């Protein structure tokens, strides 16, 4: 144990937590224990979630909202029960404001398409503007580019400062009376930055623009309270918060969900259908066409239970301690440059860096040989790489099961990388 590990406070009992995650016990490359540092890409899954998926398929599998038989009613109760759990988890005023999607990308695309097809006052058209930021994941850039291209609206964005924060110095010029929607990430997946929501929302409200928040990197790691945020839409995904893949969430304010048009049409989302026209079910079903990801929603419900049983505030404190320790240790590595904030203030647990001129692909490959799993590349945030004049980064990201010993394994691994390419 290194000296720096002494006195870390706020850590969770990772020894107990890790017993819940079967994958963390496996080895790679002839017996090397996996050091999983890619939770920002996807988290590992606890047995409780895996058991919920299994139990659903083994005992309760039926389509939802249709059959009158016992199993169908159980399936519906489980699916809708998951909605209740998610609603409580994000402090939604109403369960009907929680729309299940397949991931955060679909949630963000759904908002873009609602606005593209909306009537006044929400309609995005050639006389209006869309605002995002240079810090976004591609999933919060491309849907808005598509919307801008299809409607003629103008796409504007906030830049990033040298130390990895949003540059809001020109906020009044970026968000104007023409702005219809401001969409930004709460926590950057590449820089780790936690953004100042309040300041942006205040300006958006001044000009009557809607606000959409990408909470994909926030929901797994901190208390997410959609009422406190005061946004109009909040998107996140299940698989990053110990849930299964294939399930995402869009929360939206009830009156907006009532007013805005559906995007995908099909079963489940209708009230009545004739060959000439249809009327739609109330939200959230209006936005959930077709058989939904039932098992995955049930799994997400179990994930929410799991996280809640540990406590989001405690998870946040744990990650803060790990992040502080990791920043400190990484800054000791020669030639290592952190891309993003170098202190744990207003910062999430994803840390991107470059190592001399060794390409991140090569860094990741040599780390893998030692069992250390990190993400390399542009992290679906290429504009950030362009902003800092780098082709790619190596990213280590931490979660409730991460330990200081794993930070040490990363730092030792980087030493090995430097020797290999030195």
């Amino acid at each position, binding site marked *: 144990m290194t000296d720096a590990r002494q006195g870390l406070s706020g850590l969770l009992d990772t020894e107990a937590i890790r017993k819940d995650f079967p994958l963390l016990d496996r080895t790679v490359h002839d017996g090397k224990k996996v050091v999983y540092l890619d939770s920002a890409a996807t988290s590992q899954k606890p047995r409780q979630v895996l058991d919920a998926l299994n139990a659903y398929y083994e005992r309760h599998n039926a389509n939802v909202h249709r059959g009158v038989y016992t199993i169908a009613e159980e399936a519906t109760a489980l699916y809708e029960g998951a909605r209740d759990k998610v609603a409580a988890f994000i402090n939604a005023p109403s369960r009907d404001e929680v729309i299940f999607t397949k991931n955060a990308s679909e949630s963000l695309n759904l908002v873009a398409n609602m606005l593209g097809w909306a009537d006044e006052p929400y309609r995005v058209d050639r006389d209006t503007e869309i605002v995002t930021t240079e810090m976004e994941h591609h999933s919060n850039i491309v849907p808005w580019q598509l919307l801008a291209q299809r409607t003629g609206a103008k796409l504007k964005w906030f830049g990033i400062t040298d130390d990895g924060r949003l540059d809001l110095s020109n906020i009044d010029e970026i968000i104007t009376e023409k702005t219809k929607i401001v969409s930004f990430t709460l926590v950057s997946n590449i820089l780790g930055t936690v953004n100042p929501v309040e300041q942006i929302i205040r300006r958006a409200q001044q000009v009557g623009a809607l606000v959409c928040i990408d909470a994909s990197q926030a929901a797994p790691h901190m208390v997410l309270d959609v009422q406190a945020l005061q946004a109009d839409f909040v998107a996140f995904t299940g698989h990053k918060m110990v849930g299964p893949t294939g399930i995402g969430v869009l929360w939206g304010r009830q009156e907006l969900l009532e007013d805005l048009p559906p995007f995908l049409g099909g079963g489940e989302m209708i009230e009545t259908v004739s060959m000439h026209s249809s009327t739609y079910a109330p939200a959230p079903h209006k936005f959930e066409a077709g058989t939904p990801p039932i098992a995955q929603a049930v799994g997400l419900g179990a994930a929410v239970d799991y996280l809640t049983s540990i406590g989001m505030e405690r998870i946040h404190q744990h990650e803060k301690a790990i992040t502080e320790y990791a920043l400190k240790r990484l800054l000791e590595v020669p030639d290592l440059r952190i891309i993003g904030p170098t202190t744990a203030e207003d910062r999430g647990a994803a840390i991107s860096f470059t190592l001399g001129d060794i390409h991140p*692909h090569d860094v990741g490959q040599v780390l893998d*040989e030692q069992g250390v799993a990190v993400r390399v590349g542009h992290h679906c945030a290429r504009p950030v790489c362009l902003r800092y004049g780098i082709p*790619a980064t190596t990213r280590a990201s931490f979660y409730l099961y991460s330990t200081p010993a794993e930070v040490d394994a990363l730092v030792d691994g980087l030493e090995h990388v430097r020797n*290999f*390419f030195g």
Partner: protein
Amino acid sequence: MKLDSMYQEVILDHYKHPHGRGLREGDAEVHHVNPTCGDEITLRVKYDGETIADVSYEGQGCSISQASASVLNELLVGKELSQAQKIQDAFLELMQSKGQLEPDDAMEEVLEDAVAFAGVSKYPARVKCALLSWMAWKDATAKALSEGKTA
């Protein structure tokens, strides 16, 4: 160690001391990217009749992609187009072998330094890195041919 099978000394040598790097005059230019990792290459070909007079390139990427471009330059410049296409085919076959192909003498004769990439074929995520410059060369050659720059 297994890593050494990927990072052969020959590959690291080409990475640290690339052959023919830099953009020079050419008959056609292409820009290829590997969208999963952001590796990029701009490559130009220059033909003198059927002979490859030059392959010049500029780019950024990992050691595998950069070394591969260097090996390509060393192997193809001065060759006849038909011969170069045989080399390209052999390299593609090797890279798509998933580590199952043990290069024999005949293959070594065709591929020279490029046989060092045999180990890379075991790593699916890295095969694209090794092929980036070769795909760019193929594309640039097709472009040069369609523009009638070669005989």
